[in-house]
């Protein structure tokens, strides 16, 4: 993580044009290449940013960040006030809430509730961008990466896609397929998962826990 405090002006050219006039700002360059320009206020949202992948060209008085769509962020640096860089390592990600962790535990105990013939290899299988919830093998011996969420949204599919990309580089896991598991999966997440050949499975938490309710059901 590289942090630069500088007096700068910023111009964005792309879908529209945007100009940030000269002021002191925090420029953040993350290890994955994301560039963000922050003011000294607001909770989390940068004034302007460019997601990775992109190309950062540093000139004497300006940085030019260009992405694959040809959009550019030009940061004209008038005064460099401070600069620091830290190796932050792999982020462990958000800590799972109780239900999500328990769901993972229950599915690990019996992966056939996700798909027939699934056998657990290990929980929290490490990849170089973070651990995937479950690594399994299917009946044909193919590696299966399972990401478990309480609510399945697009972010979860994106996360599993990143794991699959990393895992597929490992000859032992090559051809790995993904299964996205949640109590409920949003339609948009299902569409994205299908386009990436990731299976979606919805599971009933109470059923997995084997709870028999006193509230009787019609069906």
């Amino acid at each position, binding site marked *: 993580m590289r942090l630069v405090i500088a007096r700068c002006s910023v111009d964005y050219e792309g879908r529209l044009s945007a100009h940030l006039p000269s002021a002191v700002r925090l420029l953040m360059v993350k290890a994955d290449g994301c560039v963000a320009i922050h003011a000294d206020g607001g909770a989390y949202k940068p004034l302007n940013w460019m997601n990775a992948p992109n190309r950062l060209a540093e000139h004497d008085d300006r940085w030019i960040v260009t992405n694959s769509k040809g959009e550019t962020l030009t940061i004209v640096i008038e005064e460099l006030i401070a600069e620091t860089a830290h190796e932050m390592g792999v982020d462990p990600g958000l800590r799972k809430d109780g239900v999500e962790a328990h769901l993972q535990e229950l599915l690990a105990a019996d992966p056939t509730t996700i798909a027939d013939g699934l056998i657990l290899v290990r929980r929290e299988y490490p990849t170089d961008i973070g651990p995937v919830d479950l690594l399994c093998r299917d009946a044909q011996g193919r590696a299966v990466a399972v990401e478990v969420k309480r609510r399945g*949204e697009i972010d979860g599919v994106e996360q599993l896609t990143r794991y699959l990309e990393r895992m597929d580089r490992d000859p032992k896991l090559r051809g790995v397929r993904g299964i996205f598991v949640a109590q409920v999966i949003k339609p*948009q997440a299902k569409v994205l998962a299908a386009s990436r050949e990731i299976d979606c499975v919805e599971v009933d938490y109470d059923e997995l826990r084997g709870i028999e309710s006193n509230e*009787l059901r*019609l069906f």
Partner: protein
Amino acid sequence: MRFRCERDVLVDGLSTAGRAVSSRGGAQPVLAGIRMILQGDRLELTGSDLELTISVELTVAGDTDGEIVIPSRLALDIVKALEPGAVTIDTEGEEARITGGRSQFSLHLIPAEEYPPLVAPTGESLTIGAAEFAEGLRQVVPAASTDDSRPILTGVLLAREGTGLRLVSTDSYRLAVRDLPGTSVLAEGQKVLVPSRALTEVARALQSASELTLLLGERDASFLIDGVRLSTRLIEGEFPNYRGLIPQSQPNRLTVGRTALIDALRRVKLMAREATPVRLTMSADGLELVAITQDVGQAHEQLDAQYEGTDLTVAFNPDYLMNGLDVTPGDEVSIETVDTLKPALLRSLETTDFLYLLMPVRVS
């Protein structure tokens, strides 16, 4: 864009369209906004979370046509807070200026080009009376599930029944069925599953309307009500076979005054805490309601009622029972039962157009 409009008219429009706005914007932050399109004196406000879209048409004093997306919650809060009277909205670059009385607000806009294209309503248009349909929705929508893990049950089934329309909903604990004999909107054998959330908004919009126009597409439905258009995706999948669940004859039948039972249940339910049920003891002497919550206390109440059958005590979730009683028409209702574990049938003595089936709660 520039227009002028009465504050209260704009508040109504923004709050109606805003009910479809995604609370967090989700994957598309632009959906946290309301799209405003001004053409002449016609202003269209649209909110959408892609599942449900609500568009409202207002007549305003238009000056300069345009299209913007304005943050929904903030815009509503601002307009609502202005002095009564005329409100002017005009835009310059990426900002909207909202002026009313001596107040002026400047609000950052969301890029309008990011607003997703919305599917225009399709299908044959049919116009039906509002009052009966609204009454039907009031009766069945509360029984639909709110649990997204079973999406089929979050919808209300609209099916042709004879020459009329049948509305059905269930959350698996109860089932509500309403027939609208004179309402013919579906073809023979046609049935659609409409999200109950959309129908809640339809019912709200119907409060002051005399009729509504329904357009049924293959994957979506639209309801046009007095300048408001609600479009929703239909739920895909097979609704449970509810017909087999409705018992044809029940050996035990209790007849009781509806209001008296509602009042008694409301009192007794105060002691039905921590999800404990209310027990209904039915005998030739009448009806007794009992609620017992361990370590808290208990409540008993006797009610006059007619009973035919064997003495029986059945326990119910008091909220579900109350929902059923609230929407069953008439002064008297019947509760028909088989035993302590089979579904009970709640009906009006005055009409056969509505029934409410309720599963008991198992008690020791």
